[in-house]
């Protein structure tokens, strides 16, 4: 049983992800249907995808990483931050970090 709803947790995650060193930007990881709805309704939903199943929670975040960093290292720290964002929850989530861009460092 989760103590924090998906809708409550997702914005928390968005905040902590972009604060991780090496993260260039966070992007929408939500399903295409949700993104299509948001585009049509012109609303900014959360970027993180938080999906609750039976007794489990799956969290996916999508990030861009500065290309001079090890994106696996950055992604691992993002995953730690995601877990910490929901640390007051009783369910330990499955976390997926998708590196969608490797971006040239600012010159």
């Amino acid at each position: 049983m989760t103590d924090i709803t998906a809708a409550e947790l997702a914005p928390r995650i968005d905040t902590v992800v972009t604060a991780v060193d090496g993260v260039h930007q966070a992007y929408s990881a939500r399903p295409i249907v949700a993104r299509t709805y948001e585009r049509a309704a012109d609303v900014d939903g959360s970027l993180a995808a938080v999906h609750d199943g039976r007794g489990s929670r799956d969290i996916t975040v999508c990030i861009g990483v500065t290309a001079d960093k090890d994106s696996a290292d950055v992604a691992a720290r993002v995953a730690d931050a995601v877990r910490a964002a929901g640390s007051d929850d009783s369910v330990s989530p499955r976390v997926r970090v998708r590196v969608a861009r490797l971006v040239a460092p600012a010159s």
Partner: protein
Amino acid sequence: MSENNDEVGSSGFSLEDLSAYLDRGRVPRIAAIERDAECQAVLASMERMGRLSREIVDEQAAEPLAESWYDDIMREVMREFRAGRDIPLARTDDGTEIVVTEGALYELIRCVGDGVEGVIVGRVRLDQPEPDAPLDVRVSISVVFGRRMTDAVDEMRDGIRTAVERQGDLRVGRVDVTVGDVHLEEEEEA
């Protein structure tokens, strides 16, 4: 929004939509574009190519680069930046799944080319014959007239290998760099 099928990933926007958005200075802000990784990658590439086209194409005759080189490269970029499959990047003890998209690797390789003097990256191909096998990379480039081609190719090859192998568990197999074009610098034309 365009209704043609020239869609960038699953964003619902076409190359023309993004080009128009860029021309407008990204104003008014369209959240669906700003929050979409593939749109952002294509926009970044458009900005780079826009700078290059101003520096090169507007200042010189079409030869030796083909007149349609901008369109050709943007078509390649579009194809490449479709996210493609997810490639495992690292294994973790806590079960976290960390993946990188093929599109991100294409962008990384283009970044390498941007950092090599006198090189414009044309086509990029990635191939991984088996899961967990090293990635094979094929790149075609244009080299500025007067630059020793072998130096440019070596720099590209080393840069690609270093950049990709910096990323988690990824390993690179073959790196084939082909010089498919030669271009002139602006001042050489003046």
